[in-house]
């Protein structure tokens, strides 16, 4: 056993740290904020950050940091551990680090895409040139993606797509859809679905914004009305989309912005050490101490699953249990951090960004709202516990 980074990893961590401190615009901390574990306040999906984010991604791309986990022959460093280190550091600073293209589209194409597709898409993604949105959920297919009703029928060399997607995070600032659609209506639910790439500019594709409860436009509804794409945009084999999607789940987990938890905890500790209430330092209150100690312990456990998942992936193992635990605990920690922070800060926690008396830049009030999305998005906690039990522990399905 060894719980230290290698020298090379330590050096890499330092390099990322130096880079991000230098590159982030002054006052960045005040501008953006993402509550870890939540999906509602993701700055990369906000239109006003698009330009900065695009530029940043190209810079990261030029350093080779958008494909750290990919094999070296595709420009990567074949190290999920490095990717995890990178995400940890970047998310601590609220900096751009990973998106749907780098964490889901790229790895899936690597795994199941044709040579042609690899050649076409991987370099663009690694350079940070293209952004994708995830076209999975539909009004009647949320937890149950196999109920996907968006249809794509063949017509010559093309597919014609009709249907509707929802909760499409960042569709409005992305270039392409990574779309799940039904290509065989006669097959069983899971078996007739395909993954495909759709250019956002294709005629018939309409995007309508949804405002989430954080007051942010991150989600969209996307309508497909006779949208025509070339068949070669199907990823891997036709009708295997659902299985690809399941396999890709593990990639998704490791992009958790785990460093943001670390940051919040540090800022809270600092706050209670500096703040007097009712004549005593908050940090001397044993109830406050218990809450912060518990947060620190739970975060340490989350890091355990985080590093272990990365390590297992580098061993070539698909860690169903570990990566599920990571998602589950991450979203629960998002909630328990928000709850504990609110309880520690008292009414000050409710103040919003910009208020004169607001502590921690107003992140707690935003986080309190956003944190309810954690156990809902990207697989509800109920679904994930079920996956752990059946696929991970071998318990029988119904």
């Amino acid at each position, binding site marked *: 056993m060894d719980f230290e980074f290698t020298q090379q990893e330590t050096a890499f961590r330092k390099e990322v740290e130096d880079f991000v401190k230098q590159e982030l615009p002054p006052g960045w901390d005040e501008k953006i904020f993402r509550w870890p574990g939540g999906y509602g306040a993701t700055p990369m999906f906000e239109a006003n950050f698009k330009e900065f984010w695009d530029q940043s991604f190209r810079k990261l791309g030029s350093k080779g940091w958008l494909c750290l986990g990919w094999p070296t022959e595709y420009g990567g460093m074949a190290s999920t551990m490095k990717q995890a280190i990178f995400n940890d550091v970047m998310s601590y600073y609220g900096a751009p680090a990973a998106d749907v293209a780098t964490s889901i589209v790229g790895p899936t194409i690597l795994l199941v895409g044709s040579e042609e597709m690899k050649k076409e898409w991987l370099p663009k993604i690694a350079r940070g040139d293209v952004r994708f949105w995830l076209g999975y959920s539909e009004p009647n297919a949320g937890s149950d993606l196999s109920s996907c009703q968006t249809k794509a029928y063949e017509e010559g060399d093309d597919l014609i797509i009709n249907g509707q997607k929802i909760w499409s995070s960042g569709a409005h600032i992305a270039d392409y859809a990574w779309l799940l659609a039904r290509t065989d209506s006669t097959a069983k639910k899971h078996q007739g679905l395909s993954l495909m790439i759709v250019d956002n500019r294709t005629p018939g594709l309409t995007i309508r914004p949804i405002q989430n*409860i954080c007051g942010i436009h991150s989600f969209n509804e996307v309508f497909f009305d006779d949208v025509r794409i070339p068949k070669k945009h199907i990823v891997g084999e036709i009708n295997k989309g659902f299985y690809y999607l399941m396999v890709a789940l593990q990639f998704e987990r490791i992009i958790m912005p785990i460093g943001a938890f670390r940051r919040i905890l540090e800022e809270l500790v600092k706050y209670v050490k500096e703040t007097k209430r*009712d004549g005593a330092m908050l940090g001397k209150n044993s109830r406050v101490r218990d809450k912060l100690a518990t947060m620190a312990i739970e975060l340490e456990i989350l890091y355990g699953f985080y590093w272990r998942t990365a390590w297992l992936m580098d061993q070539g193992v698909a860690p169903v249990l570990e990566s599920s635990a990571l998602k589950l605990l991450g979203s629960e920690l998002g909630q328990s951090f928000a709850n504990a922070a609110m309880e520690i800060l*008292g009414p000050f926690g409710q*103040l919003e960004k910009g208020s004169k008396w607001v502590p921690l830049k107003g992140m707690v009030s935003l986080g309190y*709202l956003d944190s309810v999305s954690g156990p809902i998005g990207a697989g509800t906690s109920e679904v994930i516990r079920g996956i752990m039990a059946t696929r991970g522990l071998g318990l029988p399905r119904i």
Partner: protein
Amino acid sequence: MDFELNEDQRMLKASVHHFLEKEFPKELIKKLYQSDDGYSSELWRKMAALGWMGLLVPEEYGGVGGSFLDLVVLVEEMGYNLCPGPFLSTVVLGGMTVLMSGNEEQKIDILPKLTRGEVKLTLALSEPNTIYDPSYIQVTATLDKDEYVIGGTKLFVPDANFADYFLCVARTERTPNPEEGITILLVDAKNPRTKCTLLRTLFNSKLCEIVFNDARVAKENVLGTVNLAWPTVTAIMEKAALVRCAEMIGGAQAAFDMALQYAKQRVQFDRPIGSFQAIQHHLANMWIDINGSRFLLYKAAWKMSSLIRASKEVAMAKARIGNVYRRVTTLGHQIFGGIGFTMEHDMHLYHRLSIEGDQAFGDQDFHREKVARELGL
């Protein structure tokens, strides 16, 4: 024992429910909450005309002379429908304080107007360095001839932006016992040396900062006895805490009703999600949480109505119900999934309110500590 509301209370409950449903559609409520002017003066007058403002005001001052339990019934329904406006501030923090400790002149001056919806009040208590520990109250009022000069900053004053009068809790004397030397002063909100700033919060719930910059008020404006106001403040905080509990239970019930209905309709994996054991258990737990806590609420309210000391019961209710409201709305979101995470949906309104209610008038830790004291610890 009798666990049922009486006939009048049932009628009150039904009529309030009906009125709010009709007059306060959720679209209006959302608009009101998002605006700085979070209530409708027209509807405020209608509510007054229905006797809501004067529910607890004795008939001799133009009120209805109802019981505290009646008020709880009313407010539970207001919580169910998220009724906005400075009701609790005016009726409890203001009206009941005047009723408890005002002199006859003050009562005659204020209570009839309050009943008619013509005057709005609030109590300014918390400060940057204390939520409400009398030892750390730093706003001072110093007698200068016939006037008190008030200086300092109050924080998180509810609905101060609407108020015609602030009831300012100030230190008028340094004493060895911190609970002495505290006085309540009636301050005209138009006093030029007060500055009220609306704070932006999670629920945009009209919590304000008030800076008193040597504001002068006539010494006739003292409410109750100089230096001896702290017991009144404590009593009012207890009542306000319990009324807030009523609002929270109402809100939790609404969130539960919405989630239950949705769980019966929403189909995933070819069956209603309410047929899944995990969702069933969530809903069973929510039901238990709400109904168990409602007992605490009504027992405390009944004691208050019966003029029996209810400090322990109020502390129990407040320590528990804020937590329940938060849990119920969090599970409500979990059951609704994505659709509940949108601005158009109503669930987040309840969720926002739950944390505010939990912290208003003493949070869980505060009230658990009170329960411990009541246990003799």
